[in-house]
């Protein structure tokens, strides 16, 4: 029976090795992404699966997130007779935090899990071994295009989420609850600066990387790990979001 310290040491070593492998996997994916042949068709295909196929769920969640923010923001601000700040409160919250984080959650649930499951299935059915045996590098063929597609798709999805969420809050705040349309948009114009947009953009790019990296890695190391990918993505997105926010504030 190993001692407590023995077990702890073993656990620490295994996790350190795992982290090292995860980072090497990412480095390898980037290295292969820039080696010919550059697989433009596969990148476009994965932009479709990650971006276009997640669009409906991102729009839907964006609309309702914005509507809830409009509703909550209005009743909170009204206590201080500050309803006219609704536009700026909604825009800052969505552009800096909710837009990148929630759209990343939606993409993880919609596409990340499918990505991990697809690669896990390919691993189990020896399709990845088949690629190796045909002298095709599976990292270059399967992982690099997905990571590049994730880096391109996430900021676009986040931008769409931001726009529909701001209009969702507009519908509730202005159309239903009577906040002035002028103050809603002018407040937004006065309070939102380029740094807020940049912060949301950089977050969304990094979340795109986190989702595709983790889901591909977990799928590649199937079978025991594929189901962990979604939970790990959610946790990593929240942790990374905190660090990015603290740096970019």
């Amino acid at each position: 029976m190993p001692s407590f310290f023995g077990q702890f040491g073993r656990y620490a070593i295994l996790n350190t090795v795992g982290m090292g492998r995860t980072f090497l996997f990412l480095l390898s994916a980037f290295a292969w992404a820039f080696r010919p042949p550059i697989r433009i068709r596969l990148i476009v295909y994965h932009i479709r699966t990650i971006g276009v196929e997640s669009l409906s769920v991102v729009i839907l969640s964006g609309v309702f997130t914005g509507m809830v923010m409009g509703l909550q923001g209005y009743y909170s601000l009204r206590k201080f007779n500050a309803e006219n700040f609704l536009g700026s409160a909604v825009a800052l919250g969505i552009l800096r935090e909710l837009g990148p984080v929630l759209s990343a959650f939606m993409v993880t649930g919609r596409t990340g899990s499918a990505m991990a499951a697809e690669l896990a299935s390919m691993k189990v059915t020896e399709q990845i071994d088949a690629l190796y045996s045909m002298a095709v590098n599976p990292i270059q063929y399967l992982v690099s295009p997905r990571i590049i597609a994730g880096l391109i798709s996430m900021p676009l999805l986040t931008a769409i989420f931001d726009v529909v969420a701001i209009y969702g809050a507009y519908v509730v705040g202005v159309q239903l609850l009577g906040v002035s349309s002028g103050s809603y948009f002018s407040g937004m114009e006065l309070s939102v600066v380029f740094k807020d947009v940049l912060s949301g953009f950089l977050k969304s790019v990094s979340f795109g990387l986190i989702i595709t990296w983790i889901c591909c890695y977990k799928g590649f190391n199937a079978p025991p790990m594929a189901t962990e990918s979604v939970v790990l993505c959610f946790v990593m997105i929240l942790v990374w979001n905190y660090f990015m926010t603290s740096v970019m504030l």
Partner: protein
Amino acid sequence: MIRVVDLHKTFGRQHVLRGVNLELEAGKITTIIGGSGSGKTVLLKHLNALLLPDCGSVFVGDRDITQLSQTALNEVRRKFGVLFQGAALLDSMTIHDNVAFPLRETTKLKETEIEKKVDESLAQVGLAGAGYKFPAEVSGGMKKRAGLARALVVKPEIMLFDEPTTGLDPLLGKSIHQLIRKMHATHKFTGVVVSHDIPEVFQISDRIAMLAEGVITEVGTTEDFLVSENPAVKQFIHGETEGPLAVL
């Protein structure tokens, strides 16, 4: 052609290969037999470096493939064709595109030439006209034949077959064996078959090697095996539960 020298492989605490030595003759079909879990597939996957050994060497020609760089290894792998246990066709592509895949990826042939080669290859395995189907839409036997077409379309010098008849009924299994023999006569490849399909697999084999307890216990012709006095070989080919090989 292929020489395996003192090959060892361990997974966790399981020492699967314990010093395998084997020579595979060029142009002949060698079948590796052995019980389930004896390490036949593990040994097969070392032959084109899909797995790397803990120690030992695998020589293809005069090159030890366990020591090669990725680029050099890819050159060697182009000499191989592999028929995997479940065929391992790429699910997202039609059978036609699966067969065309290695040509598109590893050659500079024009699309018209690729089309011609794919059609020929599919016709050879009796799948002419089925190229538009996806792997999920065809039977196990058709998948194996498509896998064989994909492996043979690049005209490999060496073919590896990992339990080619697993999961097929006896008639389909026999037809796959006949197909392997026919393709061998046409393409003259060096074949390595992993199977426990006894005695059917003897009909397609020039030589047999028995893997047990992590080592090759006997190598010889089919005739040698049928009259072997080795108790493990006798037990295995006659399917007896009593003997030196542990059944459960």
